[in-house]
C-alpha cells in the first residue's frame, strides 16, 4: 500500500514542487527590491505618497493572503471599469508579490529608520549624493539589520505557497491531498510535511550564511 502511495505521490509531488519553488522564487526576486522602493516611499516626506503606501500596506497586512488570491482571480474583473480577468498564474504571482512586498516593506522601513542619523550626516558632509548614500552607505547597514526578520518571512513564504490550491493550482500539498483521496491514506501528508521541513532546513542554512556574511562588522 505504502509503495503504491509513494509511486503515485513522487511524480505528482515533483510537479507540485516546481509550482511551490516557482511561486517562492519569483515572489522573493520581485518583492525584495520592490519592497525597498516601497519602504522609501512609505517614509517619504510627501504625506500623500506616504499615506497611499500606508493604506496599501494596511490592506495587504490586514486581510488574509487567501482572500487576496481569491479577489485577484475571481473578483478583480468584476470591479467596474476594469473588466479584465487575470489568468491563474498571473493572479497567484500578483497576489503573492503584492502581499509579500507589503510585509518586506515594513521590515525595510524599520531597518532604514534604525540606521543612525549620523551616517546620513557624514555622507552629506562628504558630498556623497542622496542615491549613492542610500545604495552604498545606508542599504548595506539596513540589510544587516533586517536579515533575521526577512529570514522569518522567507520561511513563512515557502509555507504560504500552499495557499495556491484555492485557485486550483497544483503545489506539493495538493499532490498530497490528491494521493490521500485516492488511497484514503494520511501518510502522503506526512511525507509532504517532511519535504517542507527539508526545504525549510535548506533555507535556514542559506539565510544563516547570508547573516554570517554581514557579521564581519558591528
Amino acid at each position, binding site marked *: 500500500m505504502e509503495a503504491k502511495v509513494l509511486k503515485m505521490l513522487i511524480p505528482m509531488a515533483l510537479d507540485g514542487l516546481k509550482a511551490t519553488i516557482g511561486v517562492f522564487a519569483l515572489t522573493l526576486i520581485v518583492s525584495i527590491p520592490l519592497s525597498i522602493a516601497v519602504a522609501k516611499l512609505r517614509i517619504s516626506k510627501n504625506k500623500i505618497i506616504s499615506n497611499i503606501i500606508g493604506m496599501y500596506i494596511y490592506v495587504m497586512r490586514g486581510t488574509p493572503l487567501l482572500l487576496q488570491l481569491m479577489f485577484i482571480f475571481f473578483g478583480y474583473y468584476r470591479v467596474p471599469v476594469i473588466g479584465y480577468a487575470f489568468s491563474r498564474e498571473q493572479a497567484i504571482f500578483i497576489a503573492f508579490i503584492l502581499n509579500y512586498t507589503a510585509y518586506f516593506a515594513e521590515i525595510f522601513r524599520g531597518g532604514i529608520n534604525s540606521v543612525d542619523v549620523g551616517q546620513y550626516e557624514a555622507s552629506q558632509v562628504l558630498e556623497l549624493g542622496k542615491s549613492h548614500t542610500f545604495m552604498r552607505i545606508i542599504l548595506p547597514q539596513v540589510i544587516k539589520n533586517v536579515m533575521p526578520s526577512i529570514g522569518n518571512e522567507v520561511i513563512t513564504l515557502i509555507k504560504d505557497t500552499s495557499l495556491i490550491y484555492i485557485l486550483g493550482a497544483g503545489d506539493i500539498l495538493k499532490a498530497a491531498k490528491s494521493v490521500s483521496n485516492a488511497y484514503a491514506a494520511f501518510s502522503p501528508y506526512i511525507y509532504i510535511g517532511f519535504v517542507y521541513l527539508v526545504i525549510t532546513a535548506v533555507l535556514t542554512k542559506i539565510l544563516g550564511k547570508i547573516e554570517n556574511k554581514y557579521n564581519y*562588522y558591528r
Partner: protein
Amino acid sequence: MVLSVENLSKSFGKNKVFSDISFSVNRGEIVCIRGKSGEGKTTLLRCLTGLEDADKGSIIINDMFLCKEENSHIKYAQKAELVAIRQEIGLVFQSFNLFPHMNVMENLLEAPTFLKKEAAETIRKRAEVLLKRLELEGKEDSYPFQLSGGQKQRVAIARACMLNPSVLCFDEPTSALDEQTRAQISKIIRDLASQGIAIIIVTHDNAFVDEIAQRIITMKDGFITVD
C-alpha cells in the same frame, strides 16, 4: 581670510539658537568656539558645514558664497556650486560617524572616488600618505569597531582631509579621549593648521582651548560675547 561669517542667525521655530553671529577665520588659524551646552555652538558648526540652513546672514568660504542675504531673504548657492563650496569645509563629528561596514581605507576612498576628483591611484596614494601621517599605518583593513576612540577620530580626520578642505571643523574633539590621545589629537590639529588648513573647534573643554587655541570665540545666549 578663508571663512567669513556675517550676521548669521538661526532659530528652530520660536527658539532662537543664535543671532547676528559674525567672525572670520584666516588660513592656518586655530579658532576655538566655546560656551556652555545649549549655547548654539554645534548648530553654528552645522550651519557652516551645510547640515542646517541658517535663517539670516551670509557664509563665505574661499570667496564663494555658501549663502547670502538678498532682499532680506537668505539665498543658498545653486546645487553644483554648493557641492564645490561644501567640499572646502570638512567636519569631524563628535561621534566620528565612520561607515561601520567599510574598513579604514574604504572610509577614506569613498568620497573622493565618488566625486571623481582625481585618478583612483592618486586618491589611494594620498590616503596612504594621510594614514601614515596620522599614525594609522597597518590599520587600512581594520573596521571601525576594531579601533580605539583615538584611532577612530584620526580616521575621521583623515576621511575629512581626503577632500582637501580649506577649513576643518571639529565638534567636541576631546569629549571621549584620554589624556594621551588628547595630546596626540592636539598635535595633529596643529600639524594640519601648519599646512594652511583653518581649524574651527567647538568645545566646552576649557583646558583644551587654553592648550590649542590661537583665537577664542565665546558664545553665550546665542551671541558672541568675546572674540
